């Protein structure tokens, strides 16, 4: 079975400061990795995904995540956060063998301080 651990339930950070949201996963088979973002009172939006190839993936709004197979991690980073980044961030995995069940972590609430 797969599992996802997000090590921080909340992360407060000052505006324009860098941030890292940590994610570790466990799986006996190969997986695809995702970060989803949930803005207040909204559904989930895909932020970025790792399927194969380069281990560093980027989103259009400045976030990036690096897949580290040896450490089974997929941490999310942004060099400078904005107030609009206030949201809940979910790390997720899905098995590569056509198992369409997404396994989510419990989420990390990013709180931007002015």
């Amino acid at each position, binding site marked *: 079975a797969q599992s*996802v651990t997000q090590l921080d339930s909340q992360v407060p950070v000052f505006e324009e400061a860098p941030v890292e949201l940590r994610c570790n996963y466990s799986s006996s088979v190969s997986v*695809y990795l995702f970060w*989803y973002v949930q803005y207040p009172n*909204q*559904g*989930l*939006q*895909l932020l970025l*995904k790792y*399927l194969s190839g380069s281990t560093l993936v980027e989103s259009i709004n400045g976030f990036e995540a690096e897949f580290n197979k040896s450490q089974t991690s997929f941490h999310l980073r942004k060099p400078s956060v904005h107030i609009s980044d206030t949201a809940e961030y*979910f790390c*997720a995995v*899905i098995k590569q063998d*056509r*198992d*369409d*069940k*997404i*396994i*989510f*972590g*419990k*989420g990390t609430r990013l709180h931007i301080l002015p």
Partner: protein
Amino acid sequence: DAGVTQSPTHLIKTRGQQVTLRCSPKSGHDTVSWYQQALGQGPQFIFQYYEEEERQRGNFPDRFSGHQFPNYSSELNVNALLLGDSALYLCASSSDGGTEQFFGPGTRLTVL
């Protein structure tokens, strides 16, 4: 493209009642998955429908059932509601074999 749509947006029921939630997938998608997101938790997989059949199911009791129609839209039914069923119910659509699921805005169910 309207994306994934869900109705209603909010719903209040009492214990023991039954509820039906609806989902229309993104254009071109034929697979619908349902997730339950309790307050402060990540979404948990309920089940997935493809070709009008339940293809995969998570650890939810039989009180949770679903249906997929020929136009790929889907319903989630919950019988004998419990207080613990209060949650945001998310629908996601994808194309068969696709790696990405697109989520709707959710239906927030409150059971009193």
